[in-house]
């Protein structure tokens, strides 16, 4: 088949990093080509070169058989190349239609012709089967729909080659399904798609071919049908990856965390956590499964002291910590990997070393006397965690902002885990983290459990819940609808409960002997 795009021996050197080293890549008409690799392997760099955001130092780009120089995005757009970034570039107060035509506004005399803009967007969305309300404001749309607007924006500019940079990182599982449907439709209409991801399941579910990058070099390109999960993971990481965490049966001890009739409201006074009774014991992992937005975040924040409980009580050990300050909760023996490392877990403009003492910055040995900071202790702590948790690059004085997502997460995990807390909450601990780091973080979670921590794991990834938990609680609409031991749980059953199904209604055969 003809190639719509060929990239030959692309090389790009950044200060101190060879981001792309003689990478070949090609794209056929009407195919979905997955581009995978761990964070920092050079996938985004390669596509940013294609879109004209970077210039390659060496190598050639051929589009539809003609060699081209793409030195700015304008040129890429003229070549009918469109790119959807992980972080959207939308004007929030404007409508869908206004955003889509932005930069190519239709005019009626001196004025913007909003009626025609709406009409054109409607036509476009009908043509590609991408349902959207052109008059809705961006700020009112879900993340999934905002992404759809980005895709429409590219299509409006005539894109026949569509690049999506880790499009699923920000989506819920349902939204991922919707996105895949959209991409399959686009493919059927002849659009060629480059799909950047580091999630192997998505590659297998969606793509026709897959190319793997590792440390700036291409490891290989394969037809998706001829590969599998294990094989791809090995190509990405360069060694055998264990998907199933090796763990011994839990040795649960006494209760460490206990919630009694806990109710939490959001800032608008809406009940998000509804009279939850739940406890976690020493030496076990309790997984909370649930579609995001069912109260998990609020539950965790209430325990952490970051959100007030409307009613009910929380105990950590024999201390009551209901509505305590975050500092008090920490002092009671609490470690916490928050779901959003950028918003909560890190001060991105602090160095790695400074981030590694957040929360313990007021304790010995990091302060001398009562106030003076001990730089030496701060750096010793950093060197130790950097080595133990393999944070790369291993430079304590570097800003956290300049690290990849996986390494940023290792900062948070390393900091919280090395304090050996009695209660450890891990909320989405491997979100946006690459395969190798996921394996590592999972092993550390189990290690914490085996050392006697009570672990509360909140995750939207069913695999994660299933492979780590000793008990699984399902949260739906603010309530804990079921608590099961790990051996009673199947993925199918969890999915059913997470969507609001009741255990009593679960397929009669499967329920036999399991229902409580």
């Amino acid at each position: 088949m003809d190639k719509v795009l060929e990239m030959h021996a692309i090389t790009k050197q950044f200060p101190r990093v060879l981001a792309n080293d003689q990478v070949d890549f090609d794209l056929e008409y009407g195919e979905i080509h997955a581009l995978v690799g761990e964070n920092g392997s050079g996938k985004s760099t390669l596509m940013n070169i294609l879109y004209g955001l970077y210039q390659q130092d060496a190598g050639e780009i051929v589009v539809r058989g003609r060699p081209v120089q793409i030195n700015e995005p304008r040129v890429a757009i003229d070549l009918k190349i469109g790119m959807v970034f992980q972080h959207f570039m939308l004007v929030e107060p404007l409508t869908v239609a206004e955003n889509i035509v932005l930069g190519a506004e239709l005019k009626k005399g001196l004025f913007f012709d909003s009626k025609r803009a709406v009409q054109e967007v409607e036509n476009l969305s009908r043509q590609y089967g991408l349902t959207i309300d052109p008059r809705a404001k961006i700020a009112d749309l879900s993340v999934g729909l905002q992404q759809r607007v980005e895709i429409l924006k590219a299509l409006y500019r005539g894109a026949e080659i569509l690049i999506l940079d880790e499009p699923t990182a920000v989506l819920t599982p349902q939204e991922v399904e919707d996105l895949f449907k959209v991409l399959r439709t686009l493919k059927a209409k002849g659009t060629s798609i480059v799909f950047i991801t580091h999630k192997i399941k998505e590659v297998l579910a969606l793509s026709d071919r897959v190319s793997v990058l590792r440390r700036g070099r291409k490891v290989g390109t394969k037809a998706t049908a001829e590969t599998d999960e294990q094989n791809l993971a090995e190509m990405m990481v360069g060694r055998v990856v264990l998907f199933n965490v090796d763990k011994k049966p839990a040795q649960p001890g006494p209760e460490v965390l206990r919630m009694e009739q806990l109710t939490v409201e959001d800032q608008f006074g809406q009940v998000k956590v509804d009279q939850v009774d739940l406890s976690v014991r020493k030496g076990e992992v309790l997984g909370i499964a649930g579609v995001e937005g069912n109260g998990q975040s609020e539950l965790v924040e209430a325990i952490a002291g970051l959100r007030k409980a409307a009613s009910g009580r929380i105990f950590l050990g024999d201390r009551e910590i209901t509505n305590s300050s975050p500092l008090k909760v920490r002092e009671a023996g609490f470690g916490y990997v928050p779901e959003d490392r950028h918003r909560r877990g890190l001060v991105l403009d602090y160095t790695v070393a400074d981030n590694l003492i957040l929360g313990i910055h007021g304790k010995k040995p990091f302060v001398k006397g009562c106030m003076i900071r001990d730089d030496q202790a701060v750096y010793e702590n950093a060197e130790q965690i950097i080595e133990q948790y393999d944070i790369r690059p291993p430079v304590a004085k570097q800003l956290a902002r300049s690290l990849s997502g996986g390494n940023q997460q290792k900062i948070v995990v390393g900091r919280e885990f090395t304090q050996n807390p009695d209660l450890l909450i891990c909320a989405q601990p491997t979100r946006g983290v690459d395969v190798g780091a996921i394996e590592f973080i999972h092993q550390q979670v189990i290690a914490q459990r085996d050392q006697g921590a009570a672990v509360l794991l909140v995750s939207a990834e069913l695999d994660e819940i299933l492979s780590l938990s000793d008990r699984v609680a399902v949260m739906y609409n603010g309530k804990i609808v079921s608590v099961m031991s790990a051996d009673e749980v199947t993925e199918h059953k969890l999915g059913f409960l997470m969507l609001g199904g009741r255990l009593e209604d679960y397929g009669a055969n499967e329920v036999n002997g399991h229902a409580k």
Partner: protein
Amino acid sequence: MLSRAKAIRWQEIVTPLAAVVLALIIGSGFILFVGENPLTAYRILFVESFGSIRNLATTLQRATPLMFTGLAVAFAYRAGLFNIGAEGQVYMGAFAAAWVGFTFTGLPRFIHLPLAILAGMAGGAIWGSIPGYLKAKLGIHEVINAIMLNFIALYLTDWLATGPFHGGSWVPETARISPSAALTRLYPPTRLSGGIFLALAAAVVAYFILWKTRQGYELRAVGLNPQAAEYGGINVAKNTVIAMAVAGAIAGLAGTEQILGLHNRFIVRFSADLGFMGIAVALLGKNHPVGVLFAAILFGALQTGSAAMDRLTSVPRELITIIQALIIFFVAAEYLIRRILRMREEA
């Protein structure tokens, strides 16, 4: 990766310098417009501000209050707060220092002078902590309250100095402070006072607090990411009040220095925008104590030199105000300068 950190630090220095150079280049257009040679005018400007020890002393004397107010703005900025209230803090600090100066006469100098300085700091600190407290407790933006408090400070001290504490002469000012509360003049006949050492000390202390103490770690964390700070057990509200109180104390020192070192009494509306100039100084100094010192000296030099330029050429002294404005413009338009310097940011 270290090279990247260095490149960033390098940029922090290059952009303000480039802003100054660009402002002078554009300023030379104005000088040409009034029919003078820009090189001559700038030479006079430079010689008059740095050409002799005496000129340098005058420059430093003008720079001293700006060092304080620049630090006051920069310190709050590091904690994520915009201290537009330095002007009011200057007045409150100044009046408090003057009051101690003319009230407690008869004290020995080694008690009276420190007492007056402490009073000045306290006056500024209280005034600064009000918007800090209102922000921390009620979430009211500090800028609104600080602006309002500027007016209150201005009119309150107007009234105090012309009413209950009027000095008795026909001018709107208080009585003179006792000599035991006055700062030493370092290089008469210039009016450079020992306040310059207070300013340098304030810069050192500000730097030390911000980067070498637990408190500073918390303040900067709150400034950079309040949500992460909260997660890390840092009390955001408390740090907001502390940051504004410290900033206010430093601004109060500007007023203190002006009273104890220069005017030796409280004169109604003596400040003439020292607090607002502090915003410009902090901006140019990149909100770093060392940068603030240099920026204040530059602004002091421009003021010192402008008088001579006005006297010796037909360039009006208002040109200097234009140049100051242009400097601020170019610092604020950092992106533009980076483009001009072709310093490409690595995404």
